[in-house]
C-alpha cells in the first residue's frame, strides 16, 4: 500500500514537473558522460601501459659515420667494440636487469623504418648506412632503465642509449590531459546538475505543498513525505546515467572499432571496460541527486 502510494506520488510529481525533470535528465546525462569519458581514458592509459611496457625496450644505438656524440669520435663502431658491448650486455653483472638482447643491423633497421613510415615520402631518401645498428634490450624491470643508460652511454662505439618508454610517457601525458579536461567539465556540469536537482525538488515541493501540509497534519512519517521527492530526483538522475552509459557504449563500440582499424597495433579498450564505469555512473548520479534533494527538502519542506 505504502509502496503503491509512494509510486503514485512520484508519478504525479514528475508529470506536474515534467520540464524540470527533463532538464535534470539532460544535465546529468552530459555531466555523467564526461565523468565516464574521464574514467575510460584512465582505463585506456592503464591498458596501454600494460600492453606496451612489456614490449618496449631500451635501444643501445651504435655509432655510424655522422654520429656527433663524444663516444663516437673515433668514427663508426668497430667489430671489436660491437662484440665488447654485446659481451657486456650478456655479462653476469647485468643479468639481473637484462631479460633479452637482440641485435638489429642497419639493414633490419631500414626494414623497420620503412614499415613504420610506410606512407611517408622520406622513406625513399633514407638508406641503410644512415641508420644506426642497435642492440634492443628487454629489461626485467622496465623502471631500471638508468642502469643500462649509465653502463653504456660512455662506452666506446655507443652513440646513445634511448628508453622507448619516454615516447609512451609523452602519449600518456596527452591522454592524461584529455582525461583531466573531461573531468573538469564533468565537475562543472555536476555542480550544475546538483543545483538543477535542488531547484527542481524545490519547485516540486512547492507545487505539492497542500498535499505535504495535509500529510504532516495527519501524522505521515518524514520518510513517507520526503521519499517521493527524493526518488523523483534520483529517478531523473538515473535516467541521465542510463543515457550517458548508452552514449559511452556507442562511442566505444563504433569509435573503438574505427580506431582499431586505423591503428591495429595499439590496444584499445572495448565495451567490456564499461562494466566498470557504468555502475559507477549510476551510483554517482543517484548519490548526487539523492543528497541534493535531501538537503533541499531540509530547507524547503518542514516536517
Amino acid at each position, binding site marked *: *500500500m*505504502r509502496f503503491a*502510494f509512494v509510486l503514485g506520488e512520484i508519478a504525479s510529481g514528475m508529470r506536474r514537473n515534467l520540464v524540470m525533470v527533463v532538464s535534470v535528465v539532460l544535465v546529468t546525462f552530459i555531466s555523467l558522460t564526461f565523468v565516464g569519458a574521464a574514467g575510460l581514458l584512465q582505463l585506456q592509459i592503464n591498458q596501454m601501459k600494460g600492453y606496451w611496457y612489456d614490449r618496449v625496450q631500451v635501444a643501445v644505438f651504435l655509432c655510424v659515420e655522422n654520429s656527433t656524440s663524444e663516444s663516437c669520435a673515433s668514427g663508426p663502431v668497430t667489430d671489436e667494440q660491437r662484440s665488447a658491448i654485446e659481451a657486456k650486455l650478456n655479462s653476469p653483472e647485468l643479468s639481473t636487469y637484462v631479460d633479452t638482447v637482440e641485435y638489429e643491423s642497419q639493414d633490419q633497421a631500414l626494414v623497420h623504418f620503412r614499415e613504420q613510415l610506410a606512407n611517408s615520402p622520406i622513406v625513399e631518401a633514407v638508406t641503410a648506412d644512415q641508420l644506426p645498428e642497435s642492440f634492443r634490450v628487454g629489461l626485467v624491470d622496465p623502471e631500471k632503465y638508468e642502469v643500462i643508460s649509465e653502463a653504456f652511454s660512455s662506452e666506446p662505439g655507443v652513440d646513445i642509449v634511448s628508453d622507448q618508454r619516454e615516447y609512451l610517457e609523452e602519449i600518456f601525458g596527452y591522454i592524461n590531459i584529455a582525461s583531466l579536461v573531461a573531468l573538469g567539465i564533468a565537475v562543472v556540469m555536476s555542480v550544475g546538475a546538483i543545483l538543477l536537482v535542488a531547484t527542481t525538488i524545490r519547485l516540486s515541493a512547492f507545487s505539492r505543498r*497542500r*498535499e505535504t*501540509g*495535509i*500529510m*504532516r*497534519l*495527519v*501524522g*505521515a*512519517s*518524514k520518510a*513517507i*513525505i520526503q521519499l517521493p521527492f527524493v526518488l523523483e530526483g534520483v529517478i531523473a538522475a538515473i535516467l541521465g546515467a542510463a543515457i550517458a552509459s548508452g552514449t559511452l557504449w556507442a562511442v566505444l563500440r563504433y569509435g573503438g572499432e574505427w580506431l582499431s582499424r586505423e591503428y591495429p597495433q595499439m590496444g584499445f579498450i572495448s565495451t567490456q571496460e564499461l562494466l566498470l564505469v557504468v555502475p559507477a555512473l549510476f551510483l554517482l548520479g543517484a548519490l548526487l541527486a539523492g543528497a541534493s534533494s535531501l538537503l533541499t527538502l531540509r530547507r524547503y519542506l518542514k*516536517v
Partner: protein
Amino acid sequence: MIRFEQVTKVYDHKSKPALDSVSLDVDRDEFVFLVGASGSGKSTFIRLVLKEDRATRGAVYVAGQNVANIPSWRVPRLRRGIGVVFQDFRLLPNKSVFANVAFAMQVIGKSRAVIRETVPEVLKTVGLEGKNNRMPHELSGGEQQRVAIARAIVNKPGILLADEPTGNLDPTTSMGIMKVLDKINQNGTTVVMATHDDDIVNTMRKRVVELRDGSVVRDDAQGIYIGETTTTAAAG
C-alpha cells in the same frame, strides 16, 4: 487530555507574547470553545498542541506526554492522535471526496481493505453519504468542511482541534457543522474549537475559555460569549 502549565509563547521578542503564562486543562471527552478576538492567541494554542511550535516557557502535555520531550521522529505519532480542521477546509482540489479522506489513511500506511471499509463509514458520520465521487469544487462550503472533518477523524484521533471551522460559512450551515462536531464529541473525541462566532457559542452551551492578548480571562463550564465590540459597549 490537553494540559497547559504556565505556557508562554513569544514569536518576536520586540512584541507582546502570543500566549502569556496560560494554564489550562482539557479533560477527555470535553468540548471546549476557545474564544477571543483575532490575535488573542487561539491559533498559537493549536500550534503548540500539534508541536508545530515550541513553547517559550512552560509545559504542554498532550495525552499525558510533555510534547517538549517528544523527539522529532515521534512527532508524526503525536499528530496521528490529533485531528485538525481549518477555516479554509484545505481539501486537495484534484481528488474526489473519497480520495481526500482516503489520503489521510494512505499516508500513514493503512491497507486498501481498511480504507475501503472505513471511509464510507466516516462520510456517513459527517452526513455525506452518496457523495463519494464528487470533486471538492462541486460541493458547497458546508459540504467541503464536512469532508475536511471526515479527513480529520478518519484515523480515530483522541483529540479534534478546529480552528474557526465555521468562519467561512453562513449561520445555518455553521449549525450543521456544529451538530457534526457535537456528534463526534459524543462518540468520545475531545474537541477544542477556536471561534469568535458568538451565536454558535451561545447556542451550544459548552465550556468556554476566553483568551485576550494571550491570557485566559474567563473559563466558564457552560459559558456564553459576547463578541469584542459588545463587551466594550457593555463595559462602557
